[in-house]
């Protein structure tokens, strides 16, 4: 689309270094496995990573040639298909499915060779994508680089935690204590911990210095309150919240939900009555709290930040990863409020409206009547559902937690689920608001 030879020449040096690093990484892996080749499959994997390293070196030399046609890139057809397929629905459902598959088959995915394969694939796809001008211009934006780092770090640490949890869960099933229990002999803090801290500080300092030298901090034109940039984005860590504005009004997405996130996080230790899983990695012993937390953190926080940063362009429209951020892209907005759907669509009559000159109380009554479908739905969701759950699926929770703790937990969970539910309602029936009382600025 907007790619030209000049861009590829500019990026070729970076990509050369990038592919060389992947080659080095795989070379080291091959050597380490070769040394332990008496292990089962060690020899085979060693050969595989050695070959991968060679292929990466070839890619690096193609990239370093600086000839635009030689720089490894995804075929234009593939990029077009990805752009056409991607949208908020596919993205959200896709990430959800991916996380679920990773979770269900975690025993398979934590195997070092499987995880290493996954790392290689994602790095190569990243490199091939970087040869696309539209992709690169967003990903390489100085303030977006940390988010790319965050994604890879989260993947690594989730792998690290899950692989330890898988081992522990297996041991617990056999009646053995978790591995952390095996090393509870004491060591002196000097030198064991103090030196680790020192090395950590040096490593972080070195990393920061390199980062600061090679990546300039962004500085745009001087501030002007009359020139609104399009898109206008909040700092990256708030982009999940900004993304919620697509589905909710600012009072809920920008004020109430963030407050609930903070409150909910603080409430975790007082709501989680499960005494097991204290001080070691485990999933099977605390499945419920694990799934709720991971859903909230990875799906509702992190993937929304990625969506808001990399895939939302001018006018907060959705753009595919290789799509040019055109400010002229038009998105159809045909969302309808629930009262409209109910009174006009279903009952085929106008919205209830108070007669002219009626008293304030009368007006309020008419507003309540007009919004009754949404209010009844919301009321039953937040008021009727918790007791209903307490006598069915959450029966044991309720008996262990007591009334107040149970109500706080269930309502926090229902409010958290209000976001994905609203997303689904938007995508399936184009619902704008369940309750819409513009007279009080109260839309939900």
């Amino acid at each position: 689309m907007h790619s030209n030879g000049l861009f590829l020449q500019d990026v070729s040096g970076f990509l050369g270094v990038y592919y060389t690093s992947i080659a080095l990484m795989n070379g080291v892996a091959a050597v380490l496995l070769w040394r332990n080749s008496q292990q089962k499959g060690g020899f085979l994997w060693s050969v595989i990573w050695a070959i991968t390293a060679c292929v990466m070196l070839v890619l690096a030399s193609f990239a370093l040639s600086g000839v635009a046609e030689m720089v490894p890139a995804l075929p234009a057809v593939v990029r077009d298909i990805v752009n056409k397929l991607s949208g908020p629905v596919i993205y959200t459902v896709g990430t959800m499915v991916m996380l679920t598959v990773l979770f269900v088959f975690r025993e398979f995915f934590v195997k070092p060779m499987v995880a290493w394969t996954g790392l290689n694939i994602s790095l190569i796809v990243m490199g091939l994508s970087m040869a696309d001008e539209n992709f690169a211009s967003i990903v390489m934006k100085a303030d977006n680089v940390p988010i790319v780092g965050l994604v890879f770090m989260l993947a690594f640490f989730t792998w690290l935690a899950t692989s330890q949890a898988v081992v522990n869960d297996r041991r617990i099933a056999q009646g053995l204590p978790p591995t952390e229990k095996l090393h509870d002999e004491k060591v002196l803090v000097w030198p064991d911990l103090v030196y680790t801290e020192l090395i950590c500080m040096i490593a972080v300092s070195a990393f920061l210095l390199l980062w600061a030298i090679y990546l300039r901090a962004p500085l745009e034109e001087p501030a002007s309150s009359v020139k609104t940039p399009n898109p206008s984005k909040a700092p990256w860590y708030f982009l999940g919240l900004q993304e919620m504005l697509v589905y909710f009004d600012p009072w809920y997405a920008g004020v109430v939900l963030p407050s609930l996130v903070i409150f909910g996080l603080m409430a975790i230790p007082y709501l989680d009555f499960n005494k097991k899983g204290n001080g070691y990695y485990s999933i099977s012993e605390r499945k419920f709290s694990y799934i709720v937390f991971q859903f909230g953190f990875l799906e509702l926080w992190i993937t929304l930040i990625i969506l808001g940063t990399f895939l939302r362009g001018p006018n907060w429209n959705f753009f595919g990863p290789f799509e040019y951020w055109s400010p002229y892209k038009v998105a159809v907005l045909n969302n309808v409020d629930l009262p409209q759907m109910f009174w006009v669509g279903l009952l085929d009559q106008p919205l209830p409206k108070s007669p002219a000159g009626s008293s304030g109380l009368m007006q309020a009554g008419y507003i309540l009547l007009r919004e009754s479908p949404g209010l009844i739905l919301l009321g039953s969701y937040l008021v009727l559902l918790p007791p209903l759950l307490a006598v069915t699926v959450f029966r044991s929770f309720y008996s262990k937690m007591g009334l107040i703790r149970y109500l706080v937990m269930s309502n926090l969970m229902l409010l958290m689920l209000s976001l994905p539910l609203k997303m689904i309602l938007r995508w399936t029936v184009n619902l704008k608001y369940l309750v819409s009382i513009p007279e009080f600025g109260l839309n939900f």
Partner: protein
Amino acid sequence: MASIGETIRTSQIWKSIFRHPMPLDRRNRIVVMLTNFFLHLHPVSIKKQGIALSFTWCMGGVTFFLFLVETVTGVLLMFYYRPTLEWAYNDILALRDVTSLGILRELHRWAAHAMVITTWLHMYRVFLTGSYKPPREFNWVIGVILLLLTLLLSFTGYLLPWDQLAIWAITVGSNMARATPILGYEGPGQQLLTIGGIDMITDASDARFGLLGARFVGEETLNRFYVLHCIAIPLAAALLLAIHFWRVRKDGGISGPL
């Protein structure tokens, strides 16, 4: 060389500072932890598993180190930067183009981003190991407040370069406050605070106004955010950090299987 080192270590000055010999044997390795101000945050001995990198990820420590980096680079930046409409942007420009060692702002900005990330990773680890469970519940709560302060530190700092990126990110972020229920000018229920027919909540008295010090992001906001960023929030964070570390020790040290 050895004799020079020996001379230094046996001198009166050295002894007056450290009070005991080098921590080379068991006894002095214990003594050093008890007598050194900076080291006394730590216990003397610790479970081997509790300091395994694969267990702790070292992310809490890295977050604290980044806080220190931010303090040092932040103080240096304050020497160069004036938070006024006239100078803010120009000072940042000069910092990049004129000042020697011109990576000061880069260090400050990237360490800030890194600090947000390491805070999340630290909390992630604490959750995944169930380390918020009794007796550590309250320290988790303090940690959540520290997360909030970290985000606010980053948010207030975002405005200071006074470029388009800064002013509009803060405008978008602070527009949310306008929609605060009851207390926001455009929030639901702001009509409730009407006394004798006079609106108490206007665009010059609502939550957003309180945050910005004005009806839009302007000079008052720059000053307000500067003070919050350099003094108020760091002080609050420092106090809570101290309590956070102290509670780690009081609540049974670094977590592990019971």
